[in-house]
């Protein structure tokens, strides 16, 4: 009897976890602030979840003169809306800069690369550090799951002719969730080249 009660308890907790995950995401999508971002996609596959489009943004690589950033640090990117209604990078830092006309997006510094410049030619060519650094930023909104066929199609579209954007929702503390990927303004699932 004891084991039966324990079994029922565990199954209930498993179902509650799933319901909780769904409920939490539905709440985020309805309560957080919606914004639209321009994207550049690449196309890999995820274990257990299938094909997805890997999205990169303007803020996926940031340049800075400060050499104090380290991999693993949290970073906040400030985004402001441009005339076309897309949200663009307006600054970044270690804390969220809350302004009425901007949103903060939380990310993580994945890698820090010193920028280099070619010096000389041919056999005398070498590389000199410029004193600037590139920060590779990882955010929560980089994976868009789609069917295999569509993922491949979207990935092979020429960037200059097929503009892509995503609708994202952002919380006050900078956390974000992906809502929808668009190709030329059409939802990616309905788009045919």
């Amino acid at each position: 009897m004891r084991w039966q009660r324990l079994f029922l308890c565990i199954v209930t907790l498993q179902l509650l976890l799933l319901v909780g995950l769904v409920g939490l995401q539905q709440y985020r999508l309805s309560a957080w602030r919606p914004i639209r971002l321009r994207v550049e996609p690449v196309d890999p596959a995820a274990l257990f979840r299938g094909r997805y489009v890997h999205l990169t943004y303007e803020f996926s690589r940031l340049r800075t003169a400060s050499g104090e950033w380290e991999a693993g640090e949290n970073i906040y990117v400030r985004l402001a809306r441009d005339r076309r209604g897309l949200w663009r990078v307006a600054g970044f830092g270690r804390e969220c800069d809350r302004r009425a006309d901007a949103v903060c997006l939380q990310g993580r510094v994945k890698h820090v690369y010193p920028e280099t410049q070619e010096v000389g030619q041919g056999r005398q060519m070498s590389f000199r550090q410029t004193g600037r650094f590139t920060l590779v930023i990882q955010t929560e909104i980089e994976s868009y799951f789609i069917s295999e066929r569509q993922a491949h199609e979207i990935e092979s579209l020429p960037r200059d002719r097929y503009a892509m954007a995503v609708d994202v929702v952002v919380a006050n503390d900078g956390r974000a969730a992906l809502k929808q990927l668009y190709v030329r303004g059409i939802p990616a699932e309905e788009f045919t080249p």
Partner: protein
Amino acid sequence: MANRQTLEWLRAEVQLWQKEGLVSPAQAQGILARPGYGELLTEPPSRRLTKLFAILGGLLVGAGLILFISSNWRAIPNAAKLTLVFETIIGAYFTGYRLRFGSSSRPGLAAGFFFLGAIAYGSGIFLVAQIYNFHADWRTGILYWFLGTLPLAYAVDSRPVLWLSLGTLILWCATQFEDTGGLFLVLWQGLGGLLMAASYVHLRRLQHRRFALIYFGLGSGLVLFTTLMMTFDGIARSLAADRATNEFVAFCTALLVLCFVAFVSLSVSPWSAGDPAYRRLYTVLLLALAPGILLLTGYKPGNAYLIGTNLLMFAECSGLILFGVAVRTKAYLHLGICFFLALVACRYFDNFWEYLPRSLFFVFGGVLMLLLGWFLEIKRRHWVAEFEGEE
């Protein structure tokens, strides 16, 4: 009425009593041959076959469910996919519950349904992550899978569910810290040690011999595999070059400290006073943590490190073989022999591939493996005959 777990414990205790001279072999046989005990201790072949087919069936359906989710058919609405997964979970568990705890108990069939339910639960987590576009590097779902299935394995006394649960834990350890490259091997080493310590707790405190075997097998397999990897020059240097994040170092350190404490406790605690073989094993296993600890401290491996890891690997294989003989468990014996052969094969390739003509390399290698295999097979049969003779 006695259940299978209690009788497994009784069998292990009776063997100990016989070894200590408290009961004679005839008395030991008499105790274990009491009416009803034999049926529970020896699963009839027909029941084993039913269980095997049920578990295979559960595995195939579960694999189909995962493939269905990963193909991401947009023609089926997300709500319909979620409903299908929830129905599979509830249906599988309900059917398993009725078969196991109902009036006509069919534990073999029930095992397959519990296994399917556990896989469907994991599928549900990944389906939610897919629908809401969680980051592809989100590995917490695998941890949720582990945390949900581990207590289930105990509640329904299911070895397949325990295998699945521990498998997800091992997978989570390997994938959670992707940024650290191959350093997850150090994590696996600590995890392997903890699993081996947990096996003793199951054997002596929880009287769950069947689970104890799984913990020990997985744990020793992980420890041996990671030590074997660290014996390769290229891998050791690559591990030293990999950058460990602070989070990884903290997690790994905590795991290795826990492992160290567990081994020291088991080596000196009064629990293990009657098990000298286990005490010796856990004392020796403290050495197995050394290569991982050195790599975490930023040590640059050279020839001394490689010689040390090869000697350690040899000691671990020999130790496991001797331990298997001491506790009369064939599985440990076979595992030790397999890894010993793997070590010999790897070192032979490493050292002679470049220096011998190809034909001689394969001839000598083949002769060496044949002789070694013949010798080990003779020893293995001798030891197994000793176990079976005493049983």
